[in-house]
């Protein structure tokens, strides 16, 4: 019995590792693509060069992040088949078309126009270039739409039937499959998270440069824009997360039990456990710090509402409580810190110390990676909280794996992924940090060695005027 279990666990670790690493990049590119579109739009509208400088500054970082997102994303489109062949076969008729739509409506849009955004500024008109930037931004959001639709169907499946081969096949309307009960909440919560993550990164970079040079107009602009985002989006995100939680309570109550750490049922109102050590062996929360009745208040809007606990769920259907309990608290704790940063910035703005308060700037700097950490913690909460199912209530993780999965093969490929990801993407992160460490400059990257034309990959026009393409 030792073998297959090991292979299954390794396959789960492999998927978790590759998808977590991958998601860091889209979490940034979804927000950054829109930020680039806003910057270019402001430049076109106001004519102020600082917006173009900021556009170029962040476009360089975007190109690096996007490239890493592409190559780590290609891995994901094949991960379903290599280790999870049974899941692919059985769920393919439902999730396959949604993923195909993602490729068709999003990936091609992003990839097709990205080249023009990065390399084409001197080759197409400003309007057309702005359109290309918008297309990339729209593409990233469409991509989120489809892949979250797939993921939501796995959490709250709907609109399916089983065929003779044991496959889940569509029955009735595709709208029921695309818009499953958890989908609108998951989409809103995830896209908002991506915007917030980007705002915190941009704010952190702005803060870093303001701590060195208070007068850099470009640093000021990016910091101010980021703090407005934190001010508005962080509280919004808390509200969206709460709504998502209430939706989960209806459709996946067991996940909520694990998130709340409720081993026992509470017929007369459940306490909100702030912290504690989940003790799954003894089915209790050790050293719990809790507020009586408040969990019922949050989840049921009634202090005395009864809440069922994990004692009502068969052991075989329970998720691992410890991971879910802690990852949820990491996410929520960071979320409140982000809202605090937004509030702090508002106060500083009102006092006129937004660019000079070193307490605020340092806080923003420390918070720069908090969005990424919160996003991963949130995904761990929802995905581990769905266990032991890949499709809630319908298909167990253990029956989803490829039948002949052998531990040595999965272990070898996992080791290869870990080494390559840390080496390659580690180098990528170093390059991104190097770019971020340079202050945003006037005439951001106008290549000095090219005459006449200032950018683009084809200074050929400068040498051969007859080849200049018509505008």
């Amino acid at each position, binding site marked *: 019995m030792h073998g297959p279990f090991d292979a299954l666990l390794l396959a789960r670790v492999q998927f978790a590792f590759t998808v977590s690493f991958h998601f860091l990049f889209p979490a940034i590119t979804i927000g950054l693509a829109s930020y680039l579109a806003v910057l270019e739009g402001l430049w076109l509208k106001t004519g102020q060069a600082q917006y173009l400088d900021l556009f170029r500054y962040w476009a360089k970082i975007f190109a690096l992040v996007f490239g890493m997102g592409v190559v780590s994303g290609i891995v994901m489109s094949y991960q379903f088949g*290599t280790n999870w062949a049974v899941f692919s076969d059985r769920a393919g008729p439902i999730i396959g078309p949604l993923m195909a739509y993602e490729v068709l409506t999003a990936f091609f849009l992003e990839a097709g126009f990205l080249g023009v955004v990065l390399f*084409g500024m001197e080759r197409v008109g400003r309007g057309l270039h702005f359109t290309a930037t918008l297309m990339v931004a729209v593409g990233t959001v469409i991509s989120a739409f489809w892949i979250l639709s797939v993921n939501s169907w796995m959490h709250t499946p709907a609109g399916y039937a089983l065929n003779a081969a044991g496959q889940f096949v569509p029955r009735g309307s595709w709208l029921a499959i695309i818009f499953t009960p958890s989908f609108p909440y998951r989409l809103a919560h995830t896209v908002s998270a991506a915007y917030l993550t980007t705002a915190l990164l941009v704010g952190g970079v702005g803060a870093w440069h303001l701590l060195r040079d208070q007068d850099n107009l470009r640093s000021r602009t990016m910091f101010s824009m980021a703090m407005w985002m934190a001010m508005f989006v962080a509280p919004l995100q808390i509200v969206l997360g709460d709504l998502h939680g209430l939706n989960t309570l209806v459709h996946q109550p067991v996940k909520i039990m694990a998130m709340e750490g409720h081993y026992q049922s509470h017929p007369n109102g459940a306490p909100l456990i702030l912290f504690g050590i989940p003790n799954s062996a003894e089915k209790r929360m050790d050293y719990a710090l809790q507020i009586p009745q408040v969990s019922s208040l949050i989840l049921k809007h009634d202090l005395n509402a009864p809440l069922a606990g994990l004692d009502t769920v068969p052991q075989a259907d329970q998720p691992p409580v410890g991971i879910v309990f802690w990852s949820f608290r990491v996410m929520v704790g960071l979320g409140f810190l982000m809202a605090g940063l937004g509030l702090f910035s508002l106060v500083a703005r009102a006092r006129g110390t937004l660019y000079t308060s070193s307490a605020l700037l340092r806080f923003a700097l420390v918070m720069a990676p908090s969005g990424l950490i919160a996003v991963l913690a949130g995904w761990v909460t929802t995905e581990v909280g769905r266990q032991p199912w890949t499709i809630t209530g319908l298909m167990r993780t253990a029956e989803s794996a490829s039948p002949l999965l052998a531990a040595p093969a999965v272990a070898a490929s996992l080791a290869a992924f870990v080494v390559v990801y840390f080496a390659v993407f580690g180098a990528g992160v170093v390059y991104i940090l190097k770019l971020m460490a340079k202050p945003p400059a006037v005439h951001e990257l106008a290549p000095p060695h*090219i005459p006449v034309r200032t950018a683009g990959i084809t200074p050929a026009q400068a040498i051969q005027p007859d080849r200049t393409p018509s505008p």
Partner: protein
Amino acid sequence: MYSDLTLIWAFIIVFAVFVYVVMDGFDLGIGILFPSFKVGPDRDTAMNSIAPVWDGNETWLVLGGGGLLAAFPLAYGVILSALYAPIITMLLALIFRGVAFEFRWRDPAHRPFWDAAFTGGSLLAALSQGIVLGALLEGIQVSGRAYAGGWWDWLTPFSLVTGLGLVVAYALLGATWLILKTEGDLQRQAARHAWRFGGATLVAIVTVSAMTPFLEGAYFNRWLTYPNILWVAPVPLLVAMASLAFVRSLKGGHELAPFLLTLLIFLLCFFGLGISVFPYVIPGAITIWDAATDRSSQIFMLIGTGLILPLILGYTGWAYWVFRGKVQAGSYHV
């Protein structure tokens, strides 16, 4: 009706794979040829000629994989678990070469390393893809709805031949692309590569074609028994004619024709592969109808594909048009 939709989907997947092979083929090919180019402007120019389009090209690989999952989920699961090692090798190789586009510009001190990653990744990705093709042609052991073979079944003399064959064929595509996109010394060097790898590609085509009929009885019947032989003979004849035209175009110093003729040869080879395996998606084991997804899924996807694929082809064509003409070294983007 059901079977018609399945045929249409088989065609769409094959189309996506073909577009992937020729489009990523030329940029993987440039990666394979990369070490032969002089460090400095020549390498930068070669890189610049594909930098704006490579990720669009690789998106066709995602469509091929995602489309296979969507339209033929059984085949997707079986093929990927059977060809585990070469598929994962390909994915890791594509990571190295994909990041090299940006990294080599961001870190001049380590540029030789990222150039090597670009070449190594391109070479390994091409080799893995060729091995996948060969292993698939040889057949996959299936029991019930699952792969039933071992971890090393994919490694055979034939799959190594197809692997090497694809490497030289991609190098040929890359060389002819550079003839089209560059000038001067680099273009002359590309032309010499085109001669070399054109010859190697022909050898590979002949070798694979000669071995294929003897892999399985079904292939032999398709290609070498009367009267089938009359129906299929035009394919090798057309390959021979396209090869002659290719030689003439190189001799004549044409810039576009060698690339287009190479594409034609790829298309004919694809056609030949189709003759061998149709109507199987996993030769000898699973037909396209066995593996086909639910009819409702086929229709749902067909509506979107019918509407969107022409648009994709349109704006992809536009992006290529924007970057038309000769490429030179110079600075990277923005």
